């Protein structure tokens, strides 16, 4: 598969604080890339910088081998971003959450937008909820709606920042199932998650971050069974304990 995303020497600062340090990574089309690491290690900062939400101090982001700045990345809907807190628009119905960006950004007609929305909502299995407002849905349904809203924009790569961390345990699987379906359908994805079982199943590559750096980058099999670094071992011990 051809290379779809390369990141070279990415550095992100918050004022003087160096949150993401000299990150290099490369992703082929259809690959699932999982980022894990302790709290404060810079996972969100990295994925947000990729999405165009944080401005890197230096480094390059190449899409299909073409360098792009945050503006281009956002304007061309390269990435679909799924947040821990869903960030649905509470004043709009589930359907309108999806049709509004289609109409305003892609300038697609209302009827065609509705058709696209129906398509993505049935993919995530909440078409029957389309006329409700987000507050009327369970957390799992809201997150699936957020995934559908991003998918509707037809991104090249889907980004997930701890998509199940705000969910009650019984709702985690319905979201992970949707993500697994997406992966099977060939979507390229970058996922920050603490769900290690899920990561092991779905990932093609997995990295451990700490202090803004990539400590280990490995295949899931090696990462879990035969990690290269002590840091990874102790991290796995911590997260796999409970």
């Amino acid at each position, binding site marked *: 598969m051809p290379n779809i995303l390369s990141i070279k020497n990415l550095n992100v600062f918050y004022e003087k604080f160096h949150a993401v340090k000299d990150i290099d990574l490369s992703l082929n089309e259809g690959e699932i890339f999982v980022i894990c690491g302790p709290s404060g290690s810079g996972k969100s900062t990295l994925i947000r910088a990729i999405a165009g939400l944080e401005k890197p101090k230096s480094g390059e982001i190449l899409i299909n081998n073409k360098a792009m700045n945050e503006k281009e990345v*956002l304007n061309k*809907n390269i990435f679909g*971003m799924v947040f821990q*807190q869903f960030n649905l628009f509470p004043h709009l119905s589930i359907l309108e959450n999806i049709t509004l*960006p289609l109409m*305003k950004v*892609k300038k697609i007609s209302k009827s065609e937008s509705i058709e696209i929305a129906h398509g993505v909502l049935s993919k995530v299995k909440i078409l029957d909820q389309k006329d409700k407002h987000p507050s009327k849905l369970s957390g799992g349904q809201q997150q699936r709606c*957020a995934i559908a809203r991003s998918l509707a924009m037809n991104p090249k790569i889907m980004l997930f920042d701890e998509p199940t961390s705000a969910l009650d345990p019984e709702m985690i699987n319905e979201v992970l199932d949707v993500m697994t379906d997406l992966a099977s359908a060939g979507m390229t994805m970058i996922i920050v998650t603490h769900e290690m079982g899920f990561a092991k199943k779905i990932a093609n590559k997995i990295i451990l971050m700490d202090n803004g750096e990539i400590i280990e980058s490995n295949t899931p099999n090696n990462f879990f069974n035969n990690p290269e670094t002590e840091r990874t071992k102790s991290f796995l011990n911590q997260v796999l304990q409970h």
Partner: protein
Amino acid sequence: MVEVFPRLLPPLWVTIKVSFISLFLAFFIGLFFGSINSVFSKLNPINLVSRFYVWIVLCTPIIIQIYAAYLLLPKIGIKLDVFWVGVIALTFNSAGYQIEISRASITSIDKGQYEASKTLGMGLFTTMIYIIIPQAIKRMLPATANEASHLIKASAVLSVIALLELHKAAINLQGNSFKFIELLALQAFLYLPIVLGTSYIANFLQKKNDDKSSRIDLVK
């Protein structure tokens, strides 16, 4: 008393008109500068000017603002009917408060809303119009209703520039030897339904918007 009641109805209508036209204009001024205030940095020139403006409004008595409009507008060549001088004075005053109301509501919207909107490719203008402001308006409703009731009552001060609104009309009648106390009571009785009506409309809108209907009690 019964015979003066009809004579106070046209002035009552003037009070309603001058208050609601001013509230309406000030609402949009408030929304515009409130948005700019919350989106751009404090040092943006528009923000500096609007901060200064809000400061002037909040720190001076409304009667001075009304005299200022009445006396200064003609000096800069704007000669208007006293009704419109009243509208300008009240709009000037109310906009100061409504900029603050808008700014506070817009600032209270979660930054995740901007971020989601941004990653979907929506620009700042689209985001404000379709995502942020509609949510902020709901939150503004209680404070705006409060401001409406203040402004309706404050419009009585327009009597100082001889606008024949409710209070001025009552003063005139008193000159015609009607009893002072009774006229006061009658005025109070006439302001009451407008203020309560405003409260009722705000409640209705709030309920329509929101199932967790939080009541707005202007009169507690």
